[in-house]
């Protein structure tokens, strides 16, 4: 009913859509030059005219994209749907302006402190949204994708990556929680608007053509990131946390995303690695006398985790998938309780009980001390930067394992099991063996990450390995996109970065987290960045989607 009304509206006013959108964008750009607030002490001072800063610049960015989409709407390329992008951008812009209004009202004491720029921006945002809803429905035809020279494609990828690096460095340096929040909304609007209009699928296609340059550029960006921090270790500490989290989540993604086995106690494998590393470290509280070199410890930790994975997996993988979820959850609790109890009073003294093992020394690799500040090209790199590089190597390894497995016979077997276990078995797939392999590989990778985590955190204790952490890992996988590397990296970054930056709403963090899981499963179960196959699994009867995917496959095959 409502959709047909929108269609009628679009049919009647479709011609005006580009002009409306461009006008909205122009108003947003103009608002950047105006004063947003009477109070010059809040939100980095947005009270000055003709000197855009912070929020004003974000508004101008939104406006520029709105104008660009409006122009595209006029030209109407067959492979783009600028209207959809405009809708995303417009709604995000409205949220952006209203969020700023709330921040102004809260910090300066009342809505009266908002100045003309904000209302101009609001009008612009509403117009841009209206343009989006007025624009005619477009069926994207991927066969019309422009084919560029491969050098041009690589150049675009490199530029996009450079932009990513700049944005990351900028994002992490925003101190004000409210500014961070609205910045995030603006980024969602700009990126969502561009990608949502069909550029996203095109970029994915382009990336698929140039896989190697893309990976290289991405790692180069990640590698260069510490050099943007001017020796400050504050953001690097967050970055190392994100990397540990992402590496573990990628391991979980093999289990959940590829093989479709729900593991709710995955944090225990990370904990196993961390505890092994702690017990074998040279800390005064370490409980094992043998001190092998760290590379050996890494292997021992990872193998111990894998053995635990085998022990826990072999009985449960024979029965239904639901049992596995609960048994792994039980295993996670057993692990935490065991670490809590093994303090010498109840069983042997391995873990110092609730106190854990503190004062784990920094790693030293061939004379390179991770605890010291090293200078490269005049830029000092602190302790966390050193670990950051180590973790980057780890994550590269994990990604390598993930992608190689995914593209192999084993990966095909996993997907077959995930989609229909009985059919897979009938086709001769060794379902039990492959499931147990997924479980063991996942546990191994988590154990590996754990050994490094122990040294980064300098201490291990049982309360780091509660169920909630497993739920967070699972959420990173689900939020980002099951079965994809990029999705999990995005999911892990979001889940670790937001709580660090949005300390104002810290108390409601978990409430929103729970709600997020429910809403995601309801409206976008395949995650933010979905693997194509997975997307079809969740939307089986969406014929348009399957047609689109087929056409894309054809294009890629060319």
């Amino acid at each position: 009913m409502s959709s047909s009304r929108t269609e009628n509206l679009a049919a009647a006013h479709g011609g005006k859509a580009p002009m409306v959108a461009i006008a909205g964008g122009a108003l947003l750009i103009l608002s950047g030059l105006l004063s947003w607030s009477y109070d010059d002490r809040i939100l980095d001072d947005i009270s000055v005219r003709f000197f855009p800063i912070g929020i004003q610049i974000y508004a101008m960015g939104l406006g520029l994209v709105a104008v660009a989409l409006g122009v595209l709407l006029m030209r109407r390329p067959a492979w783009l749907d600028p209207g959809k992008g405009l809708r995303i951008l417009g709604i995000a812009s409205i949220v952006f302006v209203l969020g700023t209004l709330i921040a102004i009202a809260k910090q300066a004491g009342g809505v009266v402190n908002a100045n003309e720029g904000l209302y101009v921006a609001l009008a612009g945002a509403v117009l841009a949204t209206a343009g989006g809803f007025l624009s005619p429905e477009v069926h994207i035809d991927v066969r019309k994708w422009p084919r560029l020279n491969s050098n041009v494609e690589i150049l675009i990828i490199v530029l996009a990556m450079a932009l990513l690096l700049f944005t990351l460095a900028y994002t992490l340096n925003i101190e004000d929680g409210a500014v961070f929040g609205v910045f995030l909304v603006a980024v969602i609007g700009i990126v969502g608007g561009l990608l949502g209009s069909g550029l996203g699928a095109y970029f994915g296609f382009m990336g698929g053509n140039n896989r190697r340059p893309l990976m290289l550029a991405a790692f180069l960006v990640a590698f260069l990131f510490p050099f943007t921090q001017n020796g400050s270790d504050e953001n690097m500490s967050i970055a190392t946390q994100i990397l540990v989290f992402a590496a573990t989540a990628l391991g979980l993604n093999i289990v959940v995303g590829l093989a479709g086995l729900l593991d709710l106690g995955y944090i225990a494998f990370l904990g196993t690695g961390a505890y092994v590393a702690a017990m074998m470290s040279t800390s005064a509280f370490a409980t094992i006398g043998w001190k092998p070199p760290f590379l050996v410890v890494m292997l021992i930790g990872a193998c111990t985790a894998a053995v635990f994975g085998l022990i826990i997996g072999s009985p449960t993988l024979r029965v239904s998938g639901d049992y596995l979820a609960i048994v792994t959850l039980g295993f996670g609790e057993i692990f935490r309780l065991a670490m809590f109890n093994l303090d010498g009073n109840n069983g042997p003294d391995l873990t110092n009980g609730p106190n854990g093992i503190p004062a784990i020394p920094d790693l030293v690799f061939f004379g390179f001390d991770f605890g010291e500040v090293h200078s490269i090209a005049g830029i000092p790199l602190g302790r966390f930067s050193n670990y950051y590089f180590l973790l980057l190597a780890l994550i590269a390894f994990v990604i390598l394992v993930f992608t190689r497995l995914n593209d192999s016979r084993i990966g095909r077997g996993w997907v077959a099991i995930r989609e229909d276990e009985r059919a897979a078995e009938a086709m001769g797939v060794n379902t039990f063996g492959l499931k147990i392999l997924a479980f063991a590989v996942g546990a191994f990778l988590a154990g590996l990450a754990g050994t490094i985590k122990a040294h980064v955190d300098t201490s291990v204790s049982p309360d780091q390995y509660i169920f909630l952490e497993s739920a967070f890992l699972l959420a990173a996988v689900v939020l980002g996109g099951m079965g994809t590397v990029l999705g999990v990296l995005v999911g892990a970054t979001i889940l670790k970065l937001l709580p660090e930056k949005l300390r104002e709403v810290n108390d409601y963090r978990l409430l929103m987290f729970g709600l997020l899981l429910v809403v995601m499963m309801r409206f976008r179960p395949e995650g933010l960045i979905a693997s194509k196959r997975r997307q079809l699994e969740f939307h089986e009867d969406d014929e348009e989607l399957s047609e689109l995917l087929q056409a894309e496959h054809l294009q890629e095959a060319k």
Partner: protein
Amino acid sequence: MDQFAQQLVNGLTLGSLYALIAVGYTVVYGIVQLINFAHGEIFMIGAFGALSTWLIFFGGETALWTLPIMLVGAIAASVLTAVTMERIAYRPLRNAPRLAPLITAIGISIFLQEAVRLGFNDPTLFLSNWNPLDFPSAKQKVPFPQIDVVTGQAFTLGGVTIQRSALFTIGCLVMCAAGLWYFVNRTKTGRGMQAVSQDPDTARLMGINVDRIIMVAFAVGATLAAVAGVAQGLQVTNINFKMGFLAGLKAFTAAVLGGIGNVWGAVVGGLTLGIVEAMAVQFIPGTFGGSPWKDVWAFALLIIVLVFRPQGLLGAKVVDRA
């Protein structure tokens, strides 16, 4: 011998609690093959519902007649939450891949815990700290009202101490089991439930409203969980927002132990798990015995059962539908 009898009583008490909660898992699983992970939270909300009822209507009064009204309050809170949850979160996912509802359940579980933690003493939640009812903050443990007759001086029977609240818990289980038996076997809705759990499609063809039956299943589970919540409050004398997690996990273990999908299996499994746990505290020698390890033994039991008898003690109605 006294020790054994004492632990038997302790085990039966604990087991009755597990059994009451486990029925909720098993009833829902039997009908929609969904592990309602948030069921532990329904139990917790039952306890908080009872406490709220008591605080609103008779703060300070501890006479026995308040108990039935508290039970009604608990059941109302639990059933309302469970039915809303089913309607809003689970129903749209009924034909989704199996992973989706399980993740939703985790989300609901965290959401409900946090909602109680943040919202209990602050009904206006996000707006202000206005607290007209003067509820205590749920961020720490909240004392649960100690009702006359069912708490107080324990009975002793030849060296065995029996708490009054323990008798109350066991009594609740007996009454609920009898009521459940009557409901499932003698009422039209109960038979509808059996039919849907055997074959939902045929049941629909026979004119049974499957959506309604599923809702009833959630409500039945929530009712028993609410009773368990009150019993737990009386027994432990305080409640907190995290109490549902471990209890829910144990109850699920009990449901699997008895054979998930089988209502009587849940009762048997709950009692068995309770007794095993109590005996493990007393009789496992060396440093791995004692209460610090009792949860570990409970989960170990779950794994052992899955290895040797995955269909559970009484045999599950549905095995391996995944």
